[in-house]
């Protein structure tokens, strides 16, 4: 990673840390949610953007993470930060297990299977035999975390920093993963499945792992989301949540880590704008954005940024070399 990129990231991190002291509590909360979504989108992007497996049901893993955290806090009195590793493991396993039968499915069929998962999950969450854990239709209410060690910040600000820290950790882990052997294997499988296998990559293992890791990320995001909103209920995790995630990675940019951030900002803040454009049909605006991006900007915002930067650096080079 170039020095310029490192400096840029440092600047962004500094700005991110300063943020909660510059804006209202409500705004801080919105940015906290945006960070949560960025982790979820990173998870989905790992699977779909880098490994080429389409998932229309990632809302399910978000829900599993959220419910895991809520149940642990509500029924077993666990502190909020302890629920994260457990939610991570639960979703890693769940994702891996779902990924195993999904191995034989490509493209549309996988989309179909994950679509089914996304559509049927709320009804599973409402199942009355599971009610004593899931709280049924009413869901579960949990407590807001308090800032530790008597730090001079309020609860919203503490939550923001907590999520920021987790997000930075998850992003660094992902970046590391993608740079290494497994990351390259994932991309190889996405681009040339058969050649990858012929080369000796254990595609079955990599693909299932990709599913597991992707689910883990989205599940951790779900746990964080539950902690931030202090409430989980089946209908918050319906099929439309999976669509929101899909919108996020398409708009943000597939196969791009920064895309997860652009996408998260989009899905957190645009619905408010969309609400103002069309009081009654904000989802239609989402849909139109989706179409617009597919037809006009298929590489997403991240791709556009990359292209723009490339053009700028070419111009800079040309003016440096001078013209005669």
């Amino acid at each position: 990673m170039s020095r310029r990129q490192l400096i840029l990231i440092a600047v962004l991190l500094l700005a991110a840390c300063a943020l909660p002291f510059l804006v209202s509590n409500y705004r801080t909360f919105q940015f906290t949610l945006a960070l949560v979504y960025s982790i979820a989108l990173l998870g989905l992007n790992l699977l779909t953007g880098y490994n080429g497996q389409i998932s229309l049901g990632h809302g399910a893993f978000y829900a599993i993470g959220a419910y895991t955290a809520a149940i642990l806090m509500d029924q077993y009195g666990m502190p909020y930060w302890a629920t994260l590793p457990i939610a991570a493991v639960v979703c890693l396993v769940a994702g891996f297990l779902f990924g195993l039968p999904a191995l034989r499915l490509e493209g549309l069929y996988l989309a179909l299977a994950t679509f089914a998962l996304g559509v049927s999950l709320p009804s599973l969450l409402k199942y009355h035999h599971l009610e004593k854990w899931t709280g049924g239709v009413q869901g579960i209410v949990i407590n807001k975390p308090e800032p530790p060690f008597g730090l001079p910040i309020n609860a919203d600000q503490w939550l923001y920093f907590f999520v920021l820290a987790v997000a930075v950790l998850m992003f660094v882990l992902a970046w590391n993963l993608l740079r290494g052997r497994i990351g390259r294997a994932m991309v190889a499988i996405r681009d040339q499945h058969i050649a990858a296998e012929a080369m000796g990559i254990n595609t079955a293992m990599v693909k299932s792992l990709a599913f597991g890791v992707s689910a883990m990320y989205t599940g951790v995001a779900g746990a964080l989301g539950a902690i931030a909103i202090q409430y989980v209920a089946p209908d918050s995790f319906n099929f439309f949540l999976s669509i929101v995630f899909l919108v996020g990675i398409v708009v943000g940019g597939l196969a791009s880590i920064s895309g997860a951030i652009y996408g998260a900002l989009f899905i957190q803040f645009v619905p408010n704008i969309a609400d103002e454009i069309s009081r009654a049909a904000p989802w239609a605006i989402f849909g139109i954005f989706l179409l617009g991006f597919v037809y006009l900007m298929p590489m997403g915002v991240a791709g556009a940024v990359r292209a723009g930067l490339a053009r700028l650096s070419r111009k800079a080079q040309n003016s440096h070399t001078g013209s005669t």
Partner: protein
Amino acid sequence: MDAFLHQVLAGLATGGIYASLALALVMIYQATHLVNFAQGEMAMFATYFAWSLINAGMPYWPAFLLTVVFAFVLGVVIERIIIRPVENAPVLAIVVVFIALLVILNSVTGWIFSYTIKVFPSPFPAEPIFGKYITSHGGGAIGVTLVVLVLLYLFFRYTPLGLAMRAAAQNPDSARLVGIRVGWILALGWGLAAAVGGVAGMMVAPIVYLDPNMMGGVLLYAFAAALVGGIDNPAGAVFGGFLVGVLENVLGAFVIGNELKLAVALVLIIGVLVVRPSGFFGKVLVTRV
């Protein structure tokens, strides 16, 4: 025994509806190798159109026919304007376009008609006329499904246009070589599929009540049905539809309770995809390496 028979027949009635929607899915799949995730919402939109006509005073059957035409035109327009630009795009782009379509149709319907649940009339009488084991609407729905299936079969088997559509679906290059305008034939296929979907919507609305989200579950069952029967086999889709309908009802009433019925569809879909992706009657696809 009574209750069982009742569930089986009710299952056949809803099964007919799943069969119709599954058939629409298979028709599009055969022609394009694409799964139309928005098929349910297109059907739902057409059903709302019917509702507005009936609400404005039009008698049922004229409204029904007009809606079928409307759905047909809707399908053609959607294919030409929204699907055509991404016909050869990567799978993810196509899936995203379908999902976008789903979301737009759902949202626009809610915007125009509001989300309050509406009653949709049935053309069949309230008293049971087919015996005590099945409602009139249930029996009527089976009848309508069968009529649609027969008409489609006759169309594809015995008309030149139907033949051209079969040819274009199987082998678009050769179809062009005999002068078939494959692009328009594709649009026609979408129109027909949308029309069939519209009929399914109008048959299911009296049962589940009309609301923008009514086709979500139905679409899932239709997917399961199409997969069970073989995603490229129309007769299989029909068989699958009736099978899924009966399974849903019988399992829901006697084994797992009504709440988990959607989970049945999920298990079926994953099960079929993993164990036998070509379904009962589909062609086993061998990909050449």
